[in-house]
């Protein structure tokens, strides 16, 4: 129990720093969450395959990002993260035509799962990104798949640092919306 509490303090502390503008802390907390989310989703996936699980993990990460203002920094972060994961899991099941009952109390007991499934990147390296508008797609591909810096991507796409940040935020919003509507 003490170990878990200790980890939760880390998550909450990192997230508070992230909201204050510390990008390294944000990366740290997102990276720490990812295997935990993967474990939660896989433990409840039933007959769904690993790609489906990874999609739900990604949708949950996007929701955590886009809804992070709904976390009260005076509260521990984990219950809020579990609530988002539960919501996204139920949503994903419902799109497959399945109603599920998922008590949120069990979420804290699930073991993390570190490794991403093999072949996922082959399956859709740009599949979802392709469905975004051209500019959004080009920006996300440049930043993530080609892993070029913000400066280089900005130059290539003719964006100033300020407009690139706005464009990135909008692109992530549209990506989340596409995933929710498309049920990919």
């Amino acid at each position, binding site marked *: 129990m003490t170990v878990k509490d200790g980890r939760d303090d880390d998550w909450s502390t990192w997230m508070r720093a992230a*909201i204050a*503008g510390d*990008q390294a802390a*944000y*990366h740290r907390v*997102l*990276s720490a969450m*990812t295997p935990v989310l*993967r474990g939660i989703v896989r433990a409840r996936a039933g007959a769904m395959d690993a790609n489906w699980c*990874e999609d739900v*993990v*990604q949708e949950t*990460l*996007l*929701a955590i*990002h886009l*809804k*992070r*203002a*709904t*976390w*009260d920094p005076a509260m521990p972060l984990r*219950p*809020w993260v*579990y*609530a*988002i994961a539960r*919501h996204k899991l139920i949503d994903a099941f419902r799109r497959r035509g399945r109603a599920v009952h998922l008590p*949120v109390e069990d979420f804290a007991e699930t073991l993390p799962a570190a490794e*991403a499934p093999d072949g*996922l*990147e082959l399956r*859709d*390296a*740009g599949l*979802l*990104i392709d469905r975004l508008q051209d500019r959004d797609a080009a920006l*996300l591909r440049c*930043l*993530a*798949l080609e*892993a070029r810096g*913000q400066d280089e991507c900005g130059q290539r796409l003719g964006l100033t640092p300020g407009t690139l*940040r*706005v464009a*990135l*935020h909008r692109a*992530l919003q549209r990506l989340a919306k596409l995933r*929710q509507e498309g049920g990919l």
Partner: protein
Amino acid sequence: MKTDDLVELIAMDDATQGPLAPRVIGVAAGLLAVTGALVIGILGLRADLMAAMADPVTALKWLMPLALMAAGAFAAIRLTHPERSTPVLARILIAVIAIGAVAWWLALAMGLPDDQVMPRSLGSSAAVCLGSITVISGPALAAVLFLLRAGASPAPMASGALAGLGVAGAATAIYALHCHEDAPLFFILWYGLGIGLVTAAGALAGRRLLRW
């Protein structure tokens, strides 16, 4: 896209959002003030407003809608947090007012001769009453629902209904500044219907708009 790539992208996005509650309340109050002033400007204040507010029964025309406004607004804002549920206090307050109003109306109706219940309930301004409550509510409800899309409601339909209840409560209290019909048979029925209508509209819209 690999999950690690997505994490990289997300960590690069430092767009910040301020807290939602002050924006929601500010915009709702502003729009209710504007549409309320327009409607009351057209219909006029009731002449004996001060005396009406001092009468303990007539004062309920403001107290009940304002209590519903407070409960609805408080609960709708709480429900922007995914890990929370509708506050017990708000649930109790809403249930007590709804059940109390229905019981009061039935007791009054049963204490009257049959041929008087209808005319007293219908009054002379039912259409204006219903129309005003919905007109005052409309723009504020639309704006509130739009803003609440930034929240993460665990129950979108309930969030929409509670937002509708909060807005309708305020709109009804504003309309009561004009409404000169003080028979409880009238105002329980028509205020209740007006608030119920806007609450239902909020629930239906919320179910679609507040999904995330």
